[in-house]
């Protein structure tokens, strides 16, 4: 009886292919029988699994069919031999091909990884889909004035109270306090006050302590693992007391793991929020006009955040009054947790955010380089078709089908791709730390663990294989045996045209990248060479220590100042609440002229300064006078910058002098107007500033030092300790601090430059290979021309022009493209360069020169050949 087998048909097929026929039937019968038995006892699924393992067990050499007809293995062996021989015979082309591909792949690999990292911030938080940060936008008379990452204090509280869609919320606010333990002071990088449910909210597992009670009480604190180690060493931190600002004792109730780099959050210490309430007032939970509070809300799953956000405006109008919501509108925006890193760059972020545009820009650049490398491969392989033509002819005569030849060439591509891939992986591991330095991260290379990344990489590899393998395979396998074996073979015009088009594309990409690099660097230079209107050279800035009582501070301060007065390396010093290089962190709304109506008030940045601040920083006064400590009631006077004067509605600076302003209930007199200067980087427009007179020291000492900088630093540090004991001596040089603002641009420029260089390298490799091949094909033509009297110069022009032509075409196409791209980029800047002709001409000339020198070696060699040598075998 013969019936259909009931075991899986593919496994029986497999065994039929694999096993010796003499024992096959017995094996299949046994499998079938045991399959049926198992099915009755163990169910279909387990049976199938068992069955699969059983079948796998039979795939051993003992049962293998030894057939003379199977030649798959022999075929691949032959392919491999042919490939290796071919590579060996043409070492030069092979190495160009492999190297070019490897560089391209390495570039693609690095970019892919970088982009992957940027795109996966905060994905480690389990409940990420439902967590949103409430971002606060503030408007003045309908005009957007400030966008806060850390916004209104009450936002989270009221959202949670009034909307059933909100499951819970947590709030945080930054702390500037200093801590000490056992009379030793410790530098904190990111201390915050955090709501009691913080750890539960973000599902952060605690190393020590219990998450539901860790931050429940006032005067409790949670430490990061590394900070706990720094403070307590091997001691158990739990229950220990640390001192805040020499005054308050906080009990350590939890230790949390350091948050991953790929998070928009970074904390080393979290006080309980109730402590903040204790220091300030209950208002810090509910106040709408107090910014600087990070609010996170967790929505019930399934809630549409857009629909929820639509209800905010009417709700706020009702909550804070129609008039206020018209004049000083508050807008609340729900930022999805995982989007914060790339799409948010607002005031008071926890740490610097990334940039979506840059990330995608990079992705495109990386893909460019990858494409250039693939194109190289296609070009070199098809161009060298001639040397393979005879092989193809012979194979066809001996009976190869076209499909088999395609298979062979695909196998070759695969082989080369694998080699290149291996080299690329090696490159990446070696180069990655340097690359990370470029993009401003200092983590060593680790292989990403996410399947997504590897699938992406696999796809890139596969795509490369298809792009680089298929076309050459089809071209090469298409030769007619009769014509190639007769030696009448010439490469087709269409193939030549395609190669030209591809080379043009390569150079187009290169030109765009070089122009881009050029523009980025020019813009950088332009920004840095701007007149800042403020002198920041040879200035050392020291953060003032924090004392709980002003009187203690002023005594210590006087001691320190005394030291500074009596040293020749110190030319001058001043104190202020902020220094140039950042936005002053005091942002105050509701300020207006005494004569104005409340609805006309505005937001300003406030900078508290000592009397000599303007003189110290070389600020120019347009009108009125600077602060003067010999005057009596200087505390009730203010200085404005021109932008602030304009915002108050004055046309001329003079008009503002002696006008009164109302600032949070107090009246101030405008005594002077300072010319606009670059408090922040020239990237931004001038911000309206108000200077208030702060004779006491809080914030920063700015010290102008003489050229003996090291001596000055030593002196100041020694006397710092004499004056303030072991309080942390935290200082920086102002020009470095100021230039940090250009970090993103510097980074962008370096990456741009790096990949432009890679692109040009790979493109030139391709050109080099192509030139060497094309000129060798034309050696006979050159011989004939020489015999007929052509000079070397004419020949050089003839041979070079072929390539230069392509480069010129690519430049012509690239110019508008790069103009468009770079205009787009420059729009990010308030101050920007104009894109003149020179910006496009310089890279163009550079590229032409590079192209000419790349092909020169070969053209020169060919042009100099003795015609007798090239023509004698005709």
């Amino acid at each position, binding site marked *: *009886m*013969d*019936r*259909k*087998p*009931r*075991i899986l048909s593919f496994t029986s097929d497999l065994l039929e292919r694999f096993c010796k026929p003499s*024992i096959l*039937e*017995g*094996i*299949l*019968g*046994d*499998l*079938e*029988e*045991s399959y*049926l038995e198992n099915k009755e006892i163990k169910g279909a699924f387990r049976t199938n699994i068992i069955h699969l*393992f*059983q079948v796998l*067990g*039979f795939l*051993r050499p*003992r*049962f293998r069919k030894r057939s003379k007809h199977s030649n798959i293995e022999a075929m691949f062996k032959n392919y491999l031999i042919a490939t290796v021989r071919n590579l060996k015979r043409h070492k030069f082309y092979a190495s160009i091909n492999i190297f070019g591909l490897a560089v391209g792949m390495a570039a693609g690999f690095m970019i892919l990884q970088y982009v992957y990292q940027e795109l996966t911030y905060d994905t480690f938080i389990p409940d990420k889909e439902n967590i949103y940060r409430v971002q606060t936008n503030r408007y003045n008379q309908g005009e957007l004035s400030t966008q806060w990452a850390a916004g209104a204090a009450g936002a989270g509280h009221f959202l949670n109270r009034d909307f059933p869609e909100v499951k819970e919320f947590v709030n945080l606010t930054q702390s500037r306090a200093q801590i000490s333990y056992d009379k030793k002071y410790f530098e904190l990088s990111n201390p915050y006050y955090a709501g009691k449910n913080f750890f539960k909210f973000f599902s952060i597992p605690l190393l020590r302590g219990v998450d539901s009670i860790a931050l429940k009480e006032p005067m409790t604190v949670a430490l990061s693992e590394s900070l706990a180690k720094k403070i307590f060493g091997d001691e158990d931190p739990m229950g220990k007391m640390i001192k805040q600002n020499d005054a308050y004792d906080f009990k350590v109730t939890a230790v949390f793991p350091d948050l991953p780099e790929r998070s928009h959050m970074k904390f080393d210490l979290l006080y309980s929020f109730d402590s903040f309430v204790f220091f300030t007032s209950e208002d810090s939970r509910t106040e709408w006009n107090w910014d600087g509070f990070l609010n996170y809300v967790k929505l019930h799953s399934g809630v549409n955040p857009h629909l929820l956000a639509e209800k905010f405006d009417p709700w706020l109008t009702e909550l804070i009054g129609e008039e206020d919501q018209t004049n000083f509108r508050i807008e609340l925006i729900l930022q999805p947790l995982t989007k914060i890193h790339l799409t948010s760059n607002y005031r008071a972020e926890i740490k610097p955010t990334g940039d979506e545009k840059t990330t995608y820009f990079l992705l495109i650049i990386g893909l460019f380089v990858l494409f250039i490398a693939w194109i190289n491969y296609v070009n070199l392989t098809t161009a060298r078709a001639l040397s393979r033509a005879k092989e193809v002819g012979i194979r066809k005569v001996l009976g190869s089908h076209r499909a088999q030849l395609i298979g062979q060439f695909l196998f070759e591509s695969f082989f080369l791709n694998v080699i290149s891939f291996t080299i690329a992986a090696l490159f990446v591991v070696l180069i990655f730390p340097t690359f990370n330095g470029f993009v401003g991260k200092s983590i060593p290379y680790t292989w990403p663990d996410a399947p997504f990344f590897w699938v992406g990489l696999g796809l890139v590899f596969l795509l490369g294989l298809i792009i680089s393998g298929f076309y050459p395979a089809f071209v090469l396998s298409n030769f007619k045996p009769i014509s190639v074996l007769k030696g009448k073979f010439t490469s087709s015009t269409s193939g030549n045209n395609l190669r030209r088009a591809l080379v043009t594309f390569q150079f187009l990409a290169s030109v765009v990248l070089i122009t881009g690099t050029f523009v980025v660097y020019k813009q950088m230079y332009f920004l840095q060479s701007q007149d800042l209107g403020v002198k920041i050279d040879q200035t050392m800035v020291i953060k003032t220590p924090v004392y709980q009582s002003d009187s203690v501070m002023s005594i210590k301060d006087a001691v320190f100042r005394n030291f500074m007065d009596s040293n020749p390396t110190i030319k001058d010093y001043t104190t202020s609440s902020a220094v140039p290089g950042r936005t002053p962190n005091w942002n105050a709304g509701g300020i207006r002229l005494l004569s104005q109506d409340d609805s006309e008030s505005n937001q300003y940045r406030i900078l508290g300064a000592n009397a000599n601040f303007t003189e110290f920083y070389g600020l120019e006064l347009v009108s009125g006078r600077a602060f003067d400590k010999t005057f009596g009631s200087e505390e009730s006077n203010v200085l404005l910058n021109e932008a602030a004067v304009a915002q108050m509605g004055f046309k001329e600076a003079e008009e503002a002098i002696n006008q009164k302003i109302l600032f949070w209930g107090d009246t101030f007199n405008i005594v002077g107007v300072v010319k606009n200067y670059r408090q922040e980087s020239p990237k931004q427009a001038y911000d309206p500033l108000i200077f208030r007179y702060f004779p006491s020291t809080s914030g920063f000492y700015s010290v102008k030092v003489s050229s003996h900088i090291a001596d000055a630093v030593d002196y100041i540090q020694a006397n710092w300790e004499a004056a303030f004991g072991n309080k942390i001596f935290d200082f920086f040089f102002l020009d470095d601090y100021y230039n940090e603002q250009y970090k993103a641009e510097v980074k962008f420029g370096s990456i741009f430059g790096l990949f432009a260089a890679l692109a040009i390298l790979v493109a030139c490799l391709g050109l080099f290979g192509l030139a060497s091949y094309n000129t060798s094909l034309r050696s006979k033509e050159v011989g004939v021309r020489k015999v007929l009297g052509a000079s070397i110069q004419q020949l050089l022009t003839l041979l070079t022009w072929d390539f230069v032509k392509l480069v010129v075409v690519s430049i012509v196409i690239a110019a508008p493209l790069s103009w468009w791209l770079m205009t787009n980029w420059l729009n990010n800047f308030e101050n920007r360069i104009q894109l003149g002709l020179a910006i496009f001409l310089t890279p163009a000339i550079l590229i032409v020169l590079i192209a000419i020198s790349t092909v020169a070696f070969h053209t020169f060699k060919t042009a100099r050949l003795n015609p007798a040598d090239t023509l004698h075998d005709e």
Partner: protein
Amino acid sequence: MKGTNLGELEELVMLSVGILYDDAYGLAIQKEIKERCKRSITISTVHSVTSRLEEKGYLSARYDGATPERGGRRKRLFQLTTSGKAAITRMKEMRDEMWKSMPEVALTNG
């Protein structure tokens, strides 16, 4: 010559073939060993051992006895060959001999 010695598993398989006598095929051998020796061996291992024993000339095989449970496929039935019988007999005698030579005290006092 290679293969004149019997491995333990080989011996077990041969004994099972002897026990099953008329119905000694892969799956039956596997079950026999499992029941008697409490040893789980995979079906592919059984086939591997029988094929090795065939090479040594201790077993012979024929096809017979198709059943519906086997999808109509015949069983590959094994039989001990003359040299196979001799080999396990020799094995048993050798063991008996060794047992006999063992003083009783070696087993009783431990």
